[in-house]
């Protein structure tokens, strides 16, 4: 096994009682106090996440925008200055290299256009190679700045109020999916109202050696309000309830955005790698569709379990677990389109036994009202 990477906060996690596990080539905390407690803390108060394992690529140069338009599914030209947006990076056949968040940042002092692309930890090397392989013909500079930046997320209904104690400017002025420069003590960086939990909250990018200082300051400021450190276990259950896709589960190199319900992240009126195949799937129809379901009979669906009806396989589970907010066993699955209708009953095959489930509305958890 190759050596696992550690974030600068490794020792802090261990001291906080974090149980460290392998994830995407990194040694990360899966839980501290317990997944259920951490999940509820983010839904009701606030939670702090070390997400430094994620990769950040800086894209600059005169052709930064056309390059990203070519590479990514979403219309990057529509991002206002300081706005961030979700976009997929696809292969020519329309399947997914990775999902990304793209930040349109202020121009460099040299006047060059300036973007930052945030990618998944486990895909960082693959994404970098893919992006490098497609620079020909574009006047762009790519820089992998992952090792220079520390990335953390602070999410939950109390996140803004707690963070405000540390910040002089009015955080409520940062609109949903917008970013700006910020300062905590002497540490400066970029803060954005983005996240992966279905809650209001922020993600921050700061110099790597400021990581511990900012982490400690936020936890201390949030202690009285019930803010806690949150591990990858609750990060997964939170994103799952909000139906945010996870690479290797809802999206991968065998799935197009159409099937995964991510057509909204594709601007089919522009050219980008994979566009023709995605458009074709959209017009001709797909052979699988992502649905949400709840277990009717006792049992927990897990990734890769077969979905069947009357004994015939009709699909496969992408994510399944006990959903802490609802206290129900829920799941996401790819099923043949004729079984995707709301209220359709099917079986999930759990350890060889069919266990009844029913499709339900997704996202399971939607809190958009709080997102400005």
């Amino acid at each position: 096994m190759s050596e696992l990477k550690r974030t600068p906060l490794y020792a802090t996690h261990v001291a906080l009682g974090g149980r460290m596990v392998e994830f995407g080539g990194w040694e990360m905390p899966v839980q501290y106090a317990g997944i259920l407690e951490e999940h509820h803390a983010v839904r009701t108060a606030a939670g702090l996440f070390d997400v430094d394992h994620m990769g950040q690529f800086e894209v600059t140069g005169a052709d930064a925008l056309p390059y990203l338009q070519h590479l990514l599914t979403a219309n990057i030209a529509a991002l206002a200055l300081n706005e961030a947006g979700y976009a997929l990076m696809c292969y020519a056949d329309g399947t997914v290299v990775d999902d990304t968040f793209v930040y349109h940042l202020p121009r460099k002092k040299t006047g060059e256009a300036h973007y930052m692309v945030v990618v998944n930890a486990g895909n960082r090397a693959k994404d970098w190679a893919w992006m490098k392989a497609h620079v020909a013909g574009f006047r762009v500079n790519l820089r992998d700045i992952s090792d220079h930046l520390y990335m953390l997320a602070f999410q939950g209904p109390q996140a803004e109020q707690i963070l405000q104690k540390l910040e002089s400017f009015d955080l409520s002025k940062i609109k949903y999916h917008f970013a700006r420069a910020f300062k905590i003590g002497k540490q400066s960086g970029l803060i954005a109202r983005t996240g992966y939990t279905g809650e209001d909250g922020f993600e921050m990018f700061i110099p790597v050696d400021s990581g511990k200082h900012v982490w400690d300051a936020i936890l201390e400021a949030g202690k009285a309000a019930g803010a806690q450190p949150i591990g990858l276990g609750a990060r997964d259950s939170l994103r799952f309830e909000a139906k945010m896709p996870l690479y290797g589960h809802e999206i991968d190199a065998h799935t197009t955005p159409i099937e995964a319900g991510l057509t909204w992240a594709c601007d089919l009126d522009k050219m980008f790698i994979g566009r023709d195949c995605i458009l074709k799937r959209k017009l001709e129809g797909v052979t699988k569709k992502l649905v949400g379901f709840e277990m009717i009979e006792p049992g927990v669906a897990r990734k890769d379990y077969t979905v069947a009806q009357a004994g015939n396989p009709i699909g496969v589970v992408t994510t399944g677990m006990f959903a802490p907010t609802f206290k129900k066993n829920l799941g996401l699955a790819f099923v043949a389109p004729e079984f995707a209708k709301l209220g359709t009953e099917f079986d999930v095959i759990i350890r060889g036994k069919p266990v009844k489930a029913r499709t339900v509305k997704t996202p399971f958890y939607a809190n958009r009202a709080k997102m400005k």
Partner: protein
Amino acid sequence: MSDQQLNYLADRKYAESHEWAKPEGELVVVGVSDYAQSQLGDVVFVELPAVGKALEAGKAFGVVESVKAASDVYAPVSGTVAAINDALNADPALVNKDAFGAGWFIKIKPSNPADLEKLLDAATYEKKIAAGEIH
């Protein structure tokens, strides 16, 4: 559920796969150890066998599901299932709250009482975990 203060009760035996077995009259009560529940994290579902089912020592008899994953639980002794803990249906978290008591899984009527002798005593079980010999 802190890792720091795990219990290793000396009144019962342990399997390397982290089940405990405690004689009770002519039956053997079975559950998972405090160490096991701490490793599993929040237990959200427990699947138990039907009363009367024949079990073989070392073979899986049920499944415990945490938020993250499903794990098999293994019979520490051979025999038949004499009782199951129905309370785990309503409150699977009993496994976390009281692994050695209210969080018991099943009672086995053993077919070979000598099976118990093959299990570890508490001190040996604890030592093996501390030494990293079992996980």
